């Protein structure tokens, strides 16, 4: 008995270790490939940059999916951060990129705290729909108070300085690109560590059995709030990067279609998967650019149909498919959205 268990143990960890090293090798290759984009395919740089910004926001939605919750309004924090940056640049034209980013993320985190304190009292339908309601509220404010927010036309966001240096457009875009890449790696790694941390582990049990959490003397609301704050902050990072890349912020940043897009990408990439969030965002953006020429009118229709197909037939998303292709997928993997009804 003891023998067999000892013998099988190293074998098992070997296998897991092998999978992990293949994964980190593939991740490393992917990051290097992305880093080379400005050199080998300069025309793709802007597109990839927007995809990375969106990927960071999608990561925020992904975190909540790990707790079994879906938010149809996370574009709210994306937009809050972008507008904070735009207002900052308007009132302080010599503001630095770092300052814009920090102010934006702080704005997103504060609004995340305010909304979060309210929505963590709910799960499931109410959680998703109340988030949607809050994003619609902010959207109406942006549209109605046009003398402050510029209404549907939005506000222009001037190019900030970088560490005190005023850069030209190409240099600034290069800085933003590599900043986005660094943030993707750094925050992606942080999120993975967070999932593995005690708080992160407790956070994920909200999906399986919340009542047991309470028996342990822990407050599910507080744990959910911490995850919610992290997700809002990540959406803020994405929104801030997006606003600086595009140079203009509009109410469209907060529109429900944007939230829908985030949820779509999160489910496409593999609900709950950190790498999947970015892979999903990259694939989504690239397909969108090339498809918009002939499918611009039916884009949402395609997204909706695709979403249905993924949910009904491939609930693990791209990462789930990739894993099963590598044939090392264990049944108990928590990345699967569909198989854990009870």
């Amino acid at each position: 008995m003891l023998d067999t268990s000892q013998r099988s143990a190293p074998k098992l960890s070997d296998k897991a270790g092998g999978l992990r090293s293949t994964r980190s090798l593939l991740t490393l290759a992917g990051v290097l490939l992305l880093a080379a984009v400005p050199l080998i395919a300069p025309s793709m740089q802007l597109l990839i940059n927007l995809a990375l910004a969106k990927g960071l926001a999608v990561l925020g939605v992904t975190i909540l999916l790990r707790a079994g919750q879906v938010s149809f309004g996370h574009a709210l924090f994306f937009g809050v951060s972008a507008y904070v940056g735009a207002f900052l640049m308007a009132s302080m034209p010599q503001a630095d990129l770092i300052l814009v980013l920090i102010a934006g993320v702080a704005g997103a985190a504060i609004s995340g705290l305010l909304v979060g304190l309210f929505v963590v009292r709910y799960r499931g339908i109410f959680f998703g729909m109340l988030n949607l309601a809050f994003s619609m509220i902010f959207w109406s404010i942006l549209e109605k108070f046009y003398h402050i927010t510029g209404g549907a036309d939005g506000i222009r966001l001037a190019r900030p300085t970088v560490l005190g240096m005023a850069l030209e457009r190409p240099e600034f875009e290069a800085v933003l690109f590599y900043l986005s890449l660094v943030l993707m790696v750094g925050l992606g790694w942080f999120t993975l560590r967070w999932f593995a941390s005690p708080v992160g582990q407790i956070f994920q049990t909200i999906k399986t059995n919340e009542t047991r959490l309470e028996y342990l003397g822990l407050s599910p609301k507080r744990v959910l709030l911490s995850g919610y704050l992290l997700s809002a902050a990540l959406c803020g990072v994405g929104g801030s990067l997006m606003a600086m890349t595009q140079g203009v912020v509009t109410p469209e940043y907060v529109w429900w279609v944007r939230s829908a897009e985030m949820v779509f990408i999160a489910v496409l990439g593999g609900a709950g998967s950190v790498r999947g969030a970015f892979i999903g965002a990259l694939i989504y953006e690239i397909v969108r650019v090339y498809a918009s020429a002939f499918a611009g009118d039916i884009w949402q229709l395609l997204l909706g149909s695709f979403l249905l197909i993924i949910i009904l037939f491939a609930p693990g998303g791209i990462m789930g498919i990739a894993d099963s292709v590598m044939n090392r997928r264990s049944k108990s993997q928590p990345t699967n959205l569909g198989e854990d009804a009870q």
Partner: protein
Amino acid sequence: MNLTIFLLALFDGISYAALVFIVALGLTLIFGVMRILNIAHGSLYAIGAYATVSLTGFFLALGFSPIFAFPLMIISAVLVGMLLGGPIEWLLLRRIYDKPEVLQLLVTFAVFMILEDAQRLVWGTQPYFQASALQALGNITLFGVTYTVYQLILLPLVAIGLLFGLRFFLRRTVIGKLILATTEDREAAQSIGIDADRVFLFTFIVGAVLAGLGGALASPTTSILPGMGADMIVLSFAVVATAGLGQIEGAAVAALLIGLGRSFAVYVWPEVAVLVPYLIMVLVLLIRPQGLFGSPVARKI
């Protein structure tokens, strides 16, 4: 605020509440019976409005009297329920009743995205106007305020009729009792020979017809344009959440509360009028998380 403006706000609020209530009634009925929040409900509302405008325009062009607009509204609503509601339940929702709540929400959300685009493909993005039903009934003067009969009398009457009609239907007819039994305990209902699949299909179609009817009745009072479905699903959710999910009578009270709150805001502080429904909802939910008339859910351990 003088009496005239007060009465105008009151009348606005009542007619608006009646419309929102009809849509929310469908939403809360579907949720109460099937435990699914149908996000595509907003699209069904919008399509009901578009279908009415197109049908009415077509028949008026043939020389029919404007009074025909009323049967056409009912026809549009039933078409929406049969042609869209039926297939949605039959092809999609039936597959996911045993899945987690999040997945069910995602599925109806996907349907919503599809229908929003489909509706834009069919009707384009220009606004439509078709007020012949409104004009056919003329105006009424009450306490010195002139208002349309359609909005002040017909809409509230329809809303009240539907409220009592649905109550009667659920409690006094055989089909209604079958629905209530299935709601109470699906497995037990099946074991005594109730076809739960058919009950669900029927309920969903009735809910979808109500969404379409809301859109049809709203069509003469407003311009029909893209985005109205998204607005309506959030608004009717606000009503349903304020009342407590699945509460039919409560939805009527919540609709009145929200409708009146919004219409008075229009005259007092127009910028925030769109926000008032959500503020009311948030306030109510802060104090009573389960809604005004909802009861706290028993916890499963």
